[in-house]
């Protein structure tokens, strides 16, 4: 092994009542890489994210973050603190807090009760929040309750919250669902700008979008990786064609 991986999943298996949501799944993500994961419904994409973030425990296999962090023995907050951020399929922002407060809560740092009870934002943190507001294009709405934002803006706010966490790895579940073409384009720019500094894993159904951002694509089917490589190669793969066009 020459290059250190950001994320290594090895032979992960998860079954729900006999149904194997993940079946011997092996996947590696390099530092700074932007990886797209595609697959039909039920392919195990969301389950994979659940395992990585500690929401679901696998029956067997290993999941390692960085060189030696065993994700399977950590709780959700521990994993988040270690540097894995997640954006959910359905945009989940804190609707009754303002845009600014949403970003503030996502700030990296000590998140214990007694720390946040007395915490004051430093000028540096304020600056960072305004930078992110600028990037996600919500500067003028920063005092708006997040619940009143448009759908696309909520998606961006959630990506902004991921950026505030300064994670090494970002997991992004269907970022462009329900977006207009302009919004999709901006989201693509946003994700591309994040890669390099962070590793980004995007799960998406929208093939045009995947083609526009992905260098490497992994195809999941029935909880297993059936193809991996650049978009053109993957699209020519007979198994992928079979899975997508159906028998």
């Amino acid at each position, binding site marked *: 092994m020459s290059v250190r991986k950001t994320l290594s999943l090895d032979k992960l298996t998860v079954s729900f009542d006999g149904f194997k949501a993940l079946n011997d799944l092996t996947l590696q993500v390099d530092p700074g890489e932007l990886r797209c994961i595609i697959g039909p419904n039920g392919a195990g994409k969301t389950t994979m994210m659940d395992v990585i973030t500690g929401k679901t425990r696998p029956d067997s296999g290993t999941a390692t973050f960085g060189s030696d962090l065993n994700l399977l023995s950590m709780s959700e907050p521990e994993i988040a603190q270690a540097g894995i951020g997640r954006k959910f399929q359905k945009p989940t922002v*804190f*609707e009754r*807090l303002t845009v600014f407060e949403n970003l503030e*809560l996502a700030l990296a740092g000590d998140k214990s009760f007694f720390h946040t*009870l007395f*915490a004051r934002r430093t000028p540096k943190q304020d600056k960072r929040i305004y930078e992110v507001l600028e990037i996600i294009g919500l500067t003028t709405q920063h005092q708006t309750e997040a619940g009143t934002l448009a759908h696309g803006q909520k998606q961006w706010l959630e990506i902004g919250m991921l950026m505030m*966490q300064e994670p090494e790895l970002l997991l992004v579940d269907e970022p462009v669902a329900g977006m207009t073409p302009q919004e999709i384009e901006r989201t693509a720019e946003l994700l591309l700008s994040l890669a390099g500094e962070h590793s980004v894993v995007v799960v998406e159904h929208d093939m045009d979008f995947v083609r526009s951002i992905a260098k490497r694509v992994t195809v999941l089917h029935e909880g297993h990786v059936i193809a991996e490589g650049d978009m053109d190669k993957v699209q020519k793969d007979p198994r992928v064609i079979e899975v997508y066009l159906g028998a």
Partner: protein
Amino acid sequence: MANYTLWISARRDTGTGWFLGSLALIVIAVAVLNQAVPASSSLHVGAYGLTLVGKYLCYALLALAVDLIWGYCGILSLGHAAFFSLGGYAMGMYLMRQIGTRGVYGDPILPDFMVFLNYKSLPWFWHGFNHFAFALAMMMVVPAALALLFGWFAFRSRVTGVYLSIITQALTYALMLAFFRNDMGFGGNNGFTDFKDILGFDLHSDKVRVVLLVITGIVLAVSYLICRAIVSSRAGRVLRAIRDAESRTRFLGYRVATYKTWVFVISAVLAGIAGALYVPQIGIINPSEFSPINSIEVVIWVAVGGRGTLYGAAAGALLVNYAKTYFTSSIPEAWNYALGALFVLVTLFLPRGIVGLVSGRARKLKNAEPLPAQAKQQEPVSK
């Protein structure tokens, strides 16, 4: 947008100002009408009035405790009367030991009920309660310990929503049954009563009652400010985040169970203090204080006043209890129906409670001026 920020904080301060102002007014007015107005005058407030207002203020503090966890963190406790009663019992134990030889049986150590039940010596957990400082500590430590234990198990196991509410209800019910038992050493069915004095001052004198009332008012005001500081802090915003999207908060790296446990403990301590202030003014504590209906009533006060505002909870406690006093003396059999109807109506038509109604009016008036959303350039929000 700066206007918007200012407007929000101004509105918040208005609520706080109104609350603390009215509280001071009520306490001072009642104290003056008792002490300075002769008993022959129709304006005179007697001992009954004094204790009544004192009782309302204790209830307001209890409502504040419930609003802190329910309004801001979504924890619907239907068992807060348990913490209130534990605080009350701790105070009661001190007051019982103050009676000394003035009891019916004249035993210098054992309270009357122990002599009556043939206790030979003081149970171990009664030791120390002859010291006020120790009792004072126990009024807070006992509710806190129970809340910590309960919260530790319930919140770590991610028990939420209606299941959590049912467990809290079971908790207070179990305690009620336990305290009803004579062999528990807490006076069984009768609880504690016939208190004589507190720190050497006669509990039956109006002066002492006024002092207790003033202390209750001050404790309520300080507790309000502490709660306000908590909900305005970043931790307070985390609590609201937990209330609205618990698992999202977890994925941001917050230990939700720890947050819930601590705020539950703080709330239990406030409830315990409320109970401790209640007992010397009312003059009795017995196991019926633990009864499940009491905890449910607190939730109704908070809902009626307006949850998630703090002052709404306190106002709701005062209003509903005033109504209760009034109705239970004029048409007692109708009260429970009225209370139930009030809860249903408020839930259906006033989701933000009476406070929401008032501030909604205020906002309509303000909207005659330029809308806050139309204000242009923003500045960094100062915390």
